[in-house]
Structure formats: structure tokens, C-alpha cells
């Protein structure tokens, strides 16, 4: 470890940086095949979303199961603004982000009073409530259950002809999420959030204003998740409450983080890199013939991952590497070697 400035960076960060740039920028420019480009777009959007979740769920240790609320708000804000008022989704993205930040700040008062599984339940309840309210709102505003966006390519409309443009956009999104995570974890906030995650009493006694830093992680996470919602809506060009506010998404994001390595910068990306293609394959081969079969495997995978790989692949690799180098593995390497 070397002495450093406001960011605790070192040579060990370089391979991760190179890999991130390669995947986020180079691959979108290289992949021309429609099928693979589609998988790449999904991987990158999910990698960004999982990274966003990871800020509050992994780095700060506040296990949200309600992130579909922010995702859905992002998707709905930009779509409604674009379809009904002709506002560019680029602006819609900001609006959705701001609404999500407001929501996160608002619900932080009740939900931050809870820890662990109660925080998870409360956030879950919030997202379910929002979904029900969105459906209920159709009583008062003439909003169809599902909304389609007209396919009219254009940069300011955030609609593109080729998938590789989407891939590049998704890559930039992921890059931003990863960069934010990097800065947050390597700066003093990273120390603070880890301290809060590890032991709130000791953090408090070390002069850390717990609510302030939890809230910071929460609103940044909410904003980035909403941005991902906008991107996904502009990619699929179709939204409905059941899919954008789905609990499945709220579960996917933590799952990807855990699979890759929770609390790390690249863990969520690694998780998305494995889960998305896997799911595409399962749906492709089993989805048509045996409805539900791919989800049975998915559930099984979920169980196996949390029991066998609690530190994720990156944590497991760090352990393996430590063992190969003949050193005793650290007790919890996942947070140290991001």
C-alpha cells in the first residue's frame, strides 16, 4: 500500500480499469452481430444497474429489495415526457433521476431506522406501493396500462437504428456507474460506508454521521438506477407497470452483485456478464417448451451462489490467488481487493 491523496488508488486497479474500458467502449464498437449486440446491451445496462444497487446494498451494506421503484420511475418519467410532451429522453433521464432522488430522500426517514432484513422488507414494500399507485393513477389520468414508444431513430430521441449504438450508450452508462463506485469506494466516503456497513456503533463513535452517508449512497444509487430505467425503456421501446416495477428486477440486481463480488467495483459487472447470457440461453432453450423451467434453475442457482460463493467470484478468486501464492486467505477479501 502506498501513500496517496484523496483517492486510495494503486497499481492493482489498472487491470480492472483496462477491462472496464475494453468491455464498455471497445466491445460495442466491435460486435456487429445483432444477437450478440443485444446480449451485450443487456449485460451493460444490467451491469450499470447492479453497480448502482451495489452502492447502497454492497458498499454501504443496506440491503435494498426495492430498486425496481427507481428503475420504474426512470422508465416512466422519460417515456411519459417523451410520448406526451415531446421532451427528449436525455432530459427525461434527468427528471426521472431527480424524482428518484426525492423519493429516496423521502423514504430514507422511515427505512433507515431499520437494519438488515427489515430494511429489505421496507424497501420491498415501498416499490410494491409505487407499482400499485402507478396502476391506480390511471383512474385519474388517461394513461394506458402499457406504453409503447414510436420507433423514430434520432440522437435527441435516444433511439438508434443499430444495436451497437445502444451498446455504446449502455457501455457509457456502465462506465459512469463504475466510475462513481470507484471514486466513492476509494475516497474517504468508501472508508465511511464500509465502517457503517461493518459496525454502526463504532462508526458513530468515530465521528461518522451515519444517516448522512447512507443517504448519500442511497440517492446516488437511486439516480443511477433511474437512469438505467430510462435507457432500458428507450431500448425496449415499451413499458408497463408489471415489468418495470417488477420484484424480479429488485432481486436480480443484488444477485448479480453477490455473484460477482458484493461491495466491489467490478463484481456487479462480472455478475451481469454471467447471469444475462445464462438467462438468455435458459429462456431460449427452455422458455418455450417448459414454462418456468428456466426460473427453477435460476432459483437453484441463487441458492447455490449464496451458500457456496458468499464472497462472489471475485472474492473466491482473491482467495484462490492468495492460496496459490502461499498466503493465508484474508477472512473477508471481498471488500479489500476490489
Amino acid at each position, binding site marked *: 500500500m502506498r501513500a496517496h491523496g484523496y483517492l486510495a488508488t494503486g497499481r492493482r486497479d489498472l487491470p480492472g480499469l483496462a477491462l472496464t474500458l475494453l468491455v464498455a467502449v471497445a466491445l460495442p464498437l466491435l460486435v456487429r452481430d445483432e444477437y450478440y449486440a443485444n446480449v451485450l446491451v443487456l449485460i451493460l445496462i444490467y451491469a450499470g444497474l447492479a453497480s448502482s444497487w451495489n452502492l447502497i446494498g454492497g458498499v454501504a451494506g443496506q440491503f435494498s429489495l426495492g430498486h425496481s421503484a427507481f428503475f420504474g420511475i426512470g422508465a416512466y418519467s422519460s417515456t411519459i415526457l417523451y410520448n406526451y410532451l415531446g421532451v427528449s429522453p436525455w432530459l427525461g433521464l434527468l427528471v426521472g433521476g431527480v424524482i428518484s432522488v426525492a423519493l429516496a430522500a423521502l423514504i430514507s426517514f422511515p427505512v433507515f431506522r431499520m437494519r438488515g432484513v427489515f430494511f429489505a422488507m421496507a424497501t420491498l414494500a415501498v416499490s410494491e406501493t409505487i407499482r400499485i399507485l402507478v396502476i391506480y393513477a390511471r383512474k385519474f389520468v388517461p394513461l394506458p396500462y402499457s406504453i409503447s414508444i414510436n420507433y423514430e431513430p434520432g440522437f435527441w430521441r435516444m433511439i438508434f437504428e443499430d444495436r451497437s449504438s445502444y451498446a455504446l450508450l449502455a457501455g457509457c452508462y456502465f462506465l459512469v456507474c463504475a466510475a462513481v463506485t470507484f471514486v466513492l469506494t476509494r475516497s474517504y466516503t468508501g472508508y465511511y460506508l464500509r465502517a457503517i456497513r461493518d*459496525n454502526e456503533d463504532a462508526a458513530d463513535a*468515530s465521528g461518522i454521521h451515519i444517516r448522512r452517508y447512507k443517504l448519500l449512497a442511497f440517492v446516488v444509487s437511486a439516480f443511477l438506477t433511474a437512469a438505467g430505467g430510462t435507457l432500458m425503456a428507450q431500448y425496449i421501446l415499451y413499458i408497463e407497470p408489471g415489468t418495470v416495477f417488477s420484484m424480479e428486477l429488485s432481486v436480480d440486481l443484488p444477485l448479480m452483485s453477490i455473484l460477482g463480488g458484493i461491495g466491489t467495483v467490478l463484481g456487479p459487472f462480472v455478475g451481469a456478464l454471467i447471469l444475462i447470457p445464462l438467462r438468455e440461453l435458459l429462456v431460449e432453450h427452455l422458455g418455450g417448451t417448459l414454462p418456468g423451467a428456466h426460473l427453477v434453475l435460476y432459483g437453484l442457482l441463487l441458492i447455490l451462489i449464496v451458500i457456496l460463493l458468499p464472497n462472489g467470484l471475485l472474492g473466491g478468486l482473491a482467495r484462490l490467488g492468495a492460496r496459490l501464492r502461499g498466503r493465508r486467505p484474508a477472512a473477508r477479501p471481498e471488500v479489500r481487493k476490489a
Partner: protein
Amino acid sequence: MSLLEVTGATKRFGGLVAVNAVDLRVEAGGIVGLIGPNGAGKTTLFNLIAGAFAPDAGDVVFDGRSIAGLHAATICERGLARTFQIPQPFGSMTVLETITTAALLHGRHIGRAEQAARLAAERVGLQGREDVLTGSLTNAQKKRLEVGRALGTMPRLLLLDEVMAGLNAAEVSRMLDVIRRLRGEGVTVLLVEHNMEAVMAVTDRLVVLDSGRKIADGPPLEVVEDPQVIRAYLGEDDAAELEDSDAERP
């Protein structure tokens, strides 16, 4: 003016008055011991000062400003740091990272905080252990890390909560060395202890609590001779017996 001034501090839990109108002063530069038998209210008073909860009545003034009812984090920012009786380590961090976290309070520069943390680690005798994960420390080392973390925030008043409880003789003597050294560096310390002997060795003044009330306050040698203190520690009958057996001894 004293560095810390507690006046009439009272805290009730339901029907129980855990701390009853206690006054306490800590002058800058001294080491004050706060002792008392189990359930005397030491820890409650300690928590009132450190901000774990607010007093029901009375005031806590630190460096001329009231800190009663403030958040623990704010109190820490003002320059008053505490340890926990049962060590509360940051499980995912190393010794150095733990103290660095505390040292970031006075500047967001990680390199500088790390330098300060190395010094603090050395002051509590954890040099050479900087890169060890907190979970792999022995209990005695965890207790010293508690002191190190508190020192990392560069406090003007250090509150130590039973840092010697559960340690063996050698470890106690090591901890006493740490505390003596702090005195040499001019750190003011308020030491809560159950173990009277250990406290006698380092304190300039002893305050004794019993059943939520202050029953003695003065130089250690005088306080331990105080019959009221002996009674509080040993109970009425035992105290009488002890006096008898002392008399009978040839």
C-alpha cells in the same frame, strides 16, 4: 474552566434511576477514574457523556459548550472520543484501515490520515500489526485497537470504557503502559473501570458511583479508604467482617 463538566445528570429507565443527579468534572490533562460496583450507573453516565442517549435532567458541558443530547458523531467531532467495553471492530478492515477511518475526521486526505493512523497504532502498541484484519486480533489487541481508533479522531478527551476488563495481568500492565504514555502526551482521560486496583495505578482522581449516586470524589488513596466506598464495594456485612478480620490479624 474544566474540560468536561457534568452537572446534575439524571437518567431513568422506567422506574429505575440509573444515574441520579451526578456532578462530575474532568480537568484538562488529568486522568480521572470512574468506578463503582456492578449496576452503579458507570456505563450509563459514560453513555450520557458520549452521546449514546440524552440525560433526562442535568447538563453535560464539554469545553464550554453543552453536548447533552447531541449525536455521538457530533460529540466525537467536538473532540470527545470513546471506546466500547466489548470491542466493536470494523470486521472487513485491517488495523490500519480502522484507525485511518477514524483519522479521516480531520481531513479527507487518505495519505495523511494513514500517516496519523500509523502513529496512533504505534501509540497503542499495535505497530507491526497494521495490515492484520481486525477479526484476527486477540481480545487484548482488540481492546487496544479500540483505544487506537478513538485516538485516531485526535480527541481532547478520551473516554475509556472498561478497557482492562477481561484481560490477564500481563495484558493489563500493557494497557496501563498505553494509558500512562497518553498522560505523558497530555491527553485527558476519563477511565471507567470495575477493577479498582488497575485504576489506582494510573489515575489522578477517582470518582465513585453507587446505585446511581456519586459517593466519593478525590485522590485515589483517600477515596479507597473512604468507609462509604468500602461499604459500597463489599456490602454492609462483608465490610464489617473485613474490619474484624483486619483487627484480629496478628
